[in-house]
């Protein structure tokens, strides 16, 4: 396993910069977690206002991505990081991009709710909530693995994507059946398909972040070619 210690440079300033950078990703991740949690709550309670708030808050996540990108660039230019420091910054830059895209996926689901376009089907809603809760759990575990740079947790969470993919496939078949029965609301049902796809994509992006954590901690590239 590679050797990771952020706080042991001779330069106190560099220690602080890396610590702040890592914390900023957790702040961004924390907001994302809240966004997903709010979206699921809005879905459960038909709360269009809360969903609208999620849509607006996505701008905050976008702004954080830009700030973190700039800080990564600044640190690379000023500190010339190497080895684990370089891997940390690469990991953060890439993870941040994935977190921002997860924000977009959540925004898509939130828009569906805020526009009151969710078809009136209890079974659909509960299925969406089930996959949504799974995705939320995976997101929490992913951010936790990143916060603790925990290789084992990252490897375990990485596997969870398979469950989400399987759930997505099942939901897709059920939804297509429902669509056939409600051809008058086809547009709304298509939106539902996109929302389900969004949940599945969040799972994929969590998997990406887990790969980055494994790369950072272990020093080996785990990505599929």
């Amino acid at each position, binding site marked *: 396993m590679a050797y990771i210690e952020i706080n042991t440079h001779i330069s106190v300033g560099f220690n602080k910069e890396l610590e702040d950078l890592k914390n900023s990703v957790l702040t961004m991740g924390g907001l994302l977690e809240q966004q997903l949690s709010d979206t699921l709550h809005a879905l459960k309670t038909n709360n269009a206002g809360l969903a609208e708030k999620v849509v607006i808050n996505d701008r905050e996540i976008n702004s954080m991505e830009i*700030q973190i990108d700039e800080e990564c660039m600044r640190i690379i230019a000023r500190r010339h990081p190497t080895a684990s420091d370089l891997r940390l910054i690469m990991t953060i830059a890439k993870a941040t991009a994935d977190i921002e895209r997860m924000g977009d996926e959540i925004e898509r689901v939130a828009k569906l709710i805020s526009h009151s376009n969710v078809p009136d089907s209890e079974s659909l809603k509960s299925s969406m909530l089930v996959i949504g809760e799974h995705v939320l759990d995976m997101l929490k575990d992913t951010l936790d693995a990143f916060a603790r740079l925990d290789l084992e947790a990252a490897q375990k969470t990485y596997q969870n994507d398979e469950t989400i993919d399987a759930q997505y496939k099942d939901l897709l078949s059920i939804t297509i059946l429902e669509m056939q029965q409600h051809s008058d609301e086809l547009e709304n049902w298509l939106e539902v398909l996109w929302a389900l796809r969004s949940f599945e994509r969040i799972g994929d992006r969590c998997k990406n972040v887990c790969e980055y954590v494994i790369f950072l901690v272990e020093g080996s590239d785990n990505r599929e070619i």
Partner: protein
Amino acid sequence: MLKLFEHDKLDVNNLTPEQTAIEVRKLNLHFGEKQVLEDINMLIPKNQVTALIGQSGCGKSSLISCFNRMNDLLHGCEVSGQVLISGNDIYHRKQNVATLRTRVGMVFQKPNPFPMSVFENVAYGLKLQGVQQRRKLDDAVEQALRETGLWKEVRDRLFESALTLSGGQQQRMVIARALALKPEILLLDEPTSALDPLATLHIEELLNQLKMQHTVIIVTHNMQQAARVSDYTAFIHEGKIIEYSDSDSLFTMPKRKQTESYITGRYG
């Protein structure tokens, strides 16, 4: 929007007098027929680290030497323009150069310990100023050595020859010698080029701490070092300032193509 990072930056073109340590106005420097510096105008911020970078012979060392009139010692040197410290032109005929050099200390490329004890080295400037009281000297030496992080390493060998210290320790002792005089400004002319990488990092970290009490100006041909240690950077080429700004901007998005070429290693 939530601000994730705080980086205080001053606009070096618009510093208030309180923020300014040195103001350079229309400075020209000739050595005989050769013009070394041409129309230099700059404001150097107080309690910050400012780096001067550029190729060998570009005039960066000559510029830093203007700040405590070290160039006066060179044959054929002619200076025009003004260098103002606390609003006073240091090239005014009434300026006492010895006093100036206690206010503006200088450290050079190679550590230059005098062949005497560590204590005597650090106390040297104070003794020259006429300080004789043992208690005062003891306190000043201890404080200066603490400031450079050297105290713990040398407190048991204060009266051994300074020549027995390592290169990095000697350079920190030389900085302590300058600090003992409590200068407002510390000039460093390639202070780490004779040191190994670890000793270099210790000196760089020291500079970051020194800026709390002093304004630090460093000349370095090592761009990476300038990027690491400085808050502000001036790129000098053929005696002119090409670009001068906060180091974040200069090293990520320089405004001038010439600066971009130099810092990316494209400049011949």
